């Protein structure tokens, strides 16, 4: 029996051992959903971050003043399978086993909310991208910073659009995924709609992974709304748009979060046509140093055109906002490191707290106080899928000041052809 005990202890010693190494790189850790339902968005976000790494290392790395040299950057990431429990285990691992210097969040508000807890528990700075929920930032986190325009300002523009194009359209149906982010968006949209004289005839959630929307659509058809807004993530949003099209729903406006803003959305063909979506960023955006000067902000990092071209050249794909968000999240860290000249968490935190800059991705400024870390600088744009010369493409249609083409209205015009 004693022998067994000794054996057990020895075995434990053998199995777990840690090693240390000299500081010769800046290590940034995160998890990404290489598999699972969040795969499409995660991949774009990851590519955005990787583009940043390649760009920084091409120039020899980031100059860290306290060390007197340029340090290359490296990424350490794991597949979180779009699974919350996995996210928590892996972030503990990133912090304690891989000894990463900084964290970037996983994709999606749900995964970010759980990762944020671990980051906060161990006091590691985490830049959250791909997470727009507001209430993550009402939990008293002091080391988590948001890149996305928060959910509460996500779909309100769609209602403004509807009012502008058809002041008589009052009936709105809201169908959203049961997820942190979609619920936050749609709760805020519902409040906004009711405050502005709309009649919310349907307000329902569907479980994540829903594939059959016929029951929703059937019910919706009988309520005859003018507009459908809502959605959740890519897979469900794409399906919803497809089934709306198959059932020839007579709607004036559809605005769904996430899915239509992903370039892959056009694969559903005709069903994609005239669907609108809010977007964090589009390659057509007009952020520039001149623009920044007008707002009395410093411009930092590459231009919109550089990013869009570099992304296209590297990945042979159109950049979407997930990719831009990924790149920008790392860019923010780079700015803070260069500014403070250290890798010290406390100093970096102070730099982030006072940051207010313009980048290719737009303005970036984080809230202080009760909602510490919430993004308050960045603004949304709206895009619509249209057909030009037989090609389906997306154009920025809202706000009018930023639009490069006019909204096609109403949505159901396509059934009448």
């Amino acid at each position: 029996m004693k022998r067994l005990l000794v054996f057990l202890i020895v075995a434990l010693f053998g199995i777990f051992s840690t090693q240390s190494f000299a500081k010769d790189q800046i290590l940034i850790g995160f998890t990404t959903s290489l598999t699972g339902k969040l795969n499409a968005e995660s991949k774009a976000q990851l590519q955005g971050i990787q583009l940043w790494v390649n760009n920084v290392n091409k120039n020899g790395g980031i100059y860290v003043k306290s060390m007197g040299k340029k340090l290359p950057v490296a990424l350490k990431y794991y597949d979180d399978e779009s699974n919350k429990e996995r996210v928590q285990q892996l972030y503990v691992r990133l912090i304690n086993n891989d000894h990463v210097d900084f964290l970037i969040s996983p994709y999606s508000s749900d995964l970010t909310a759980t990762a944020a807890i671990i980051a906060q528990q161990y006091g590691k700075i985490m830049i959250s991208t791909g997470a727009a929920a507001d209430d993550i930032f009402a939990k008293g986190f002091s080391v988590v910073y948001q890149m996305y325009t928060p959910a509460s300002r996500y779909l309100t523009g769609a209602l403004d659009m509807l009012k502008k194009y058809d002041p008589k359209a009052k009936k709105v149906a809201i169908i959203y995924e049961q997820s942190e982010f979609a619920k936050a968006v749609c709760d805020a949209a519902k409040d906004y709609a009711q405050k502005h004289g709309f009649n919310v005839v349907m307000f329902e959630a569907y479980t994540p992974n829903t594939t059959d929307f016929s029951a929703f659509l059937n019910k919706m058809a009988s309520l005859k709304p003018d507009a459908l807004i809502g959605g959740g993530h890519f897979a469900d949003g794409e399906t919803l748009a497809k089934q709306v099209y198959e059932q020839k729903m007579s709607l004036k406006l559809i605005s769904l979060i996430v899915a239509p803003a992903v370039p892959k959305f056009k694969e559903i063909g005709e069903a994609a046509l005239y669907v609108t979506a809010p977007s964090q960023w589009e390659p057509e955006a007009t952020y520039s140093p001149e623009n920044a000067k007008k707002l009395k902000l410093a411009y930092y990092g590459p231009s919109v055109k550089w990013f869009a071209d570099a992304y296209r050249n590297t990945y042979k794909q159109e950049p979407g906002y997930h990719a831009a968000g990924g790149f920008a999240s790392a860019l923010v860290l780079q700015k803070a490191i260069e500014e403070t000249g250290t890798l010290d968490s406390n100093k970096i935190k102070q730099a982030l707290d006072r940051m207010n800059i313009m980048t290719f991705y737009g303005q970036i400024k984080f809230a202080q106080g009760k909602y510490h870390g919430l993004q308050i600088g960045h603004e949304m744009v709206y895009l619509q899928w249209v057909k030009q010369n037989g090609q389906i493409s997306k154009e920025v249609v809202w706000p009018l000041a930023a639009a490069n083409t006019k909204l096609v209205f109403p949505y159901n015009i396509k059934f009448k052809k």
Partner: protein
Amino acid sequence: MQKGYTLFWLLPALIALVIYPIVTNNVMLRETVFLILLSITLSISLNIILGFTGYVSFGHIVYYGIGAYFAFYLMYAYKVSLIVSIVLGGLVSAAIAFVLGQAVLSLRGAIFAIATIGVNEAVKSLINNISILGGAMGLYFDFSIYDNYGGALKAIWLSYYLMGTLTILSVIAAYYIKKSKFGLGLFSIREDQDASAVLGIKTKLYKSLAYATSAFFPAIAGGIFAFKAGNIEPSGAFNLVKSIEMIVMVMLGGYGSVAGSALGALFYEKIKSILLVMPYVKDLHLAVSGLILLIIVQFAPSGIVGFLTKYFKNLRKVLE
């Protein structure tokens, strides 16, 4: 039933396991051991209804989830202290199991198994729709909650100590139940329920009590886990896959044996972590664990303990 020697080695071994990360102050190791302890608690508890009483509770994770939700909500909404919350969570979960047991334990065999899956899925989808419990997104602590425990890092250690204590208590409880008159009654029910009733055993009461006991410890474990994680959501708390993993642990170790279910949990976690980091196998870990399970079921249905005691009869007293 004579007292054996199982606890004489099992308890010191467990205590050594719990203490090791504390002594070395190794955080990664603590995380690993925490999960092992959780698994041991779950498998030891499931063994009471599955191994002792013979009821295949396929959706047993429902009690873990109920306990976790109850405790989490007390802490989240009413700022009740951790210990009180988890104990209440355990009691509530046990009470629900007792009441539900009155009905579902009248089903037998595979039908009972299906019914327990149904109970788990029903509770999960119910909570998905209760907005004060956060619906499908679940609930998140405000971070200030950890301040009451001396900050987040101390709170994580606290949950580790609690999990260690719980595991040791559950092992002791399971062993003494097995060695008691109550345990004898349960084993009798497992072998032949009708004959047991004729012999004077209050079968319904005994089954329900066993069911409640086997719900109690997982519920507390759920509360501790949720506290440590800082959040809770239905698909994690009522994860059917975890439920089936519990059964696999009991089977791997040996149905009905306390030492067996502890060893089964340890081995299962070990195999899983090895598979997860092995090159080539990593992406196939699900398929490989399926293959291992298939081999156990087909060729060693009585698990590690059954295999050992078959060839080394003397081991029987130390592997109860």
